[in-house]
């Protein structure tokens, strides 16, 4: 005897077409225009930042850097939906979300410039720093969400990873415990179609990545990640649900990595420029700008002011970054433990002396 005992489906949400036109009437509780403008501003700033960071890297003033070009609506969309006291556990490509959370451009440059102080966020004290080891942050997020839940805080937690990351066991383990413990946790999968050179299709045979949530018995949806309205809306709904005790949620945000994986990568080795160009049609910035032009009277002058403001803010941040004095060498030891064990005191002195010697030699 064969009987059906369970049934599932995956839905997709999007409000704007590629030209920024409404696909249907917006829900009542769509983000207000002020929020969207704020989001657009952050998108513009993020795009400028990306380009500038690559430029700094090329000129030897920054380390390896991963551009988020083309993914701005994803990262800013979910971040707009977060409350200040929610927690973010990002991957390394979420510059826009970090900005939105109050992590300064200067802090972000410091980090990518190879200075640990860049992760000592002054305005997002409880957010996690970037996770480099893929998908590991998803597990930390379950712990943070457990703590939040145990304490009865009315907050939610957001963690972000890539399409490639969904192949790593950590992701499945995190979804699983989030499901069974009904944690207030939103998983954002930024499906930008590539994990360095490995295309989405070579990563999993699943038709959607949203359906990975089914394995954990949690709800999910696929969202047009280049549609800021949809990203903000879906994220906000999921977060409200989580804060109200409704449990975890997964959003697969469909987007495209327009740039190289990082400044150390050359994407032309493994994908056609044509494929990339095609995706410019779906540019999230142009799309939301068109929406603002049509629905919020966004003018050329507004745009020019915005661009100029962002450019100025960025240049100030770069200047601040370049002016930061180096850490003292013993910083290497000073944050390893709350109090440095006696066993390492001599080594600490050694690195101070060594630096002193270097300075004397110079």
């Amino acid at each position, binding site marked *: 005897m064969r009987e059906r005992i369970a049934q599932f489906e995956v839905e997709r949400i999007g409000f704007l077409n590629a030209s920024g036109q409404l696909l249907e009437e917006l829900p009542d509780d769509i983000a207000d225009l002020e929020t969207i403008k704020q989001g657009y501003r952050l998108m513009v700033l993020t795009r400028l930042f990306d380009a500038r960071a690559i430029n700094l890297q090329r000129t030897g003033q920054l380390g390896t850097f991963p551009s988020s070009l083309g993914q701005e609506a994803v990262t800013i969309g979910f971040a707009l939906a977060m409350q200040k006291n929610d927690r973010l556990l990002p991957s390394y490509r979420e510059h826009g979300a970090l900005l939105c959370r109050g992590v300064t451009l200067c802090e972000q440059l410091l980090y990518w410039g190879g200075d640990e102080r860049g992760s000592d966020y002054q305005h997002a004290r409880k957010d996690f720093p970037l996770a480099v080891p893929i998908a590991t942050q998803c*597990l930390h997020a*379950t712990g943070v969400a457990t703590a939040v839940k145990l304490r009865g805080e009315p907050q939610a937690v957001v963690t972000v990873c890539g399409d490639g990351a969904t192949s790593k066991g950590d992701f499945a383990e995190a979804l699983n415990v989030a499901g069974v413990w009904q944690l207030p946790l939103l998983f954002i999968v930024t499906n930008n179609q590539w994990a360095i050179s490995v295309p989405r299709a070579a990563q999993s045979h699943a038709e959607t990545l949203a359906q990975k949530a089914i394995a954990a018995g949690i709800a999910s949806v696929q969202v047009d990640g280049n549609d800021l309205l949809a990203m903000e809306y879906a994220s906000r709904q999921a977060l409200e649900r989580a804060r109200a005790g409704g449990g975890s949620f997964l959003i697969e945000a469909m987007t495209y990595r327009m740039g190289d994986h990082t400044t150390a990568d050359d994407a032309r080795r493994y994908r056609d420029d044509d494929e990339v160009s095609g995706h410019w049609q779906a540019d999230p910035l142009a799309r939301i700008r068109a929406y603002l032009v049509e629905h919020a009277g966004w003018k050329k002058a507004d745009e020019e002011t915005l661009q100029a403001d962002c450019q100025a803010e960025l240049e100030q941040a770069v200047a601040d970054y370049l002016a930061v004095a180096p850490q003292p060498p013993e910083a290497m030891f000073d944050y390893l433990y*709350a109090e440095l064990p006696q066993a390492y005191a001599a080594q600490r002195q050694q690195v101070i002396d060594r630096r002193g010697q270097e300075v004397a030699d110079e």
Partner: protein
Amino acid sequence: MSEITLIEAVALALQHAMEENPDVVVLGEDVAVNGGVFRASNGLYEQFGDERVMDTPLAENMIAGLAIGMAAEGLRPVAEFQFMGFIYPAMEQIVSHAARLRNRTRGRLNCPLVLRAPFGAGIHAPEHHSESTEALFAHIPGLRVVVPSSPARAYGLLLAAIADPDPVLFLEPKRIYRLVKEEFTPNREPLPLDVCFTLREGSNVTLVSWGASMVETLQAAEQLAAREVSAEVIDVATVSPLDMTTILESVAKTGRCVIVHEAARSGGIGAEIAAQIGEFCLLDLLAPVQRVTGYDTVVPLAKMEHLYLPQVENIVAAAINAVEFE
């Protein structure tokens, strides 16, 4: 005052830490209703409920990651790994996150967690239940590795590990979980971390060990005494970072040292101790530092386990060798 076994001491420390500090939570596989496969968390679920004593799904990597997230939020998670042989899935979380979160964020976030795991051979358990790979963890900056060798030290050191603001791997010598009993008052006082305990004073040779091997090491000291060799016995206790001061002072006095550990010899913590003795006590040494250790093999299954473990006579022989060396 009553006779307490090592496993009971662990359970008492967990209970007292949870009573003192509401942020202390216990998590792991089978730690709640079942009280842990060795009963280390016996009674905690009943006393503190499922919000503070959590059975997790079966995934060690997840357990470590979960604990890190909790710790960063200010909880004091104590996570149990059922056996040390099952801690490896958590290696990335331990090496790349637990040990580094404070350093990475320049102190903004930190990681006050304890990872407990029973370790060592000698209980005739299946494969992977007999590991002593403390050296893997001792090589990781930012982590502490603590190994008690008696009920009282298990109690006091576990309290200290839980109170410590940084991550501690707390390895429990399961061979002596019930073998060693001791009278002491569980007075809610931690013992100091990062220091060795000198268990016996002596003048001819220094015996250095930790964990279950302390039993054989102390017996060896007895036998040596009968042969007029006066052995100083040091329990390293915190195997990383090492308190070399105590060890070097002892070796400077005795001129001889035998290090005993159950782990495979090559690259064991004995190597680091021997290297530092060679570096700082060379001129005091009257004989080469010797290591009495497990072999560089996989711990054999039950039938041959006894041939793997360091025995009292091996320790005695090494000490006599050292004394007779010229």
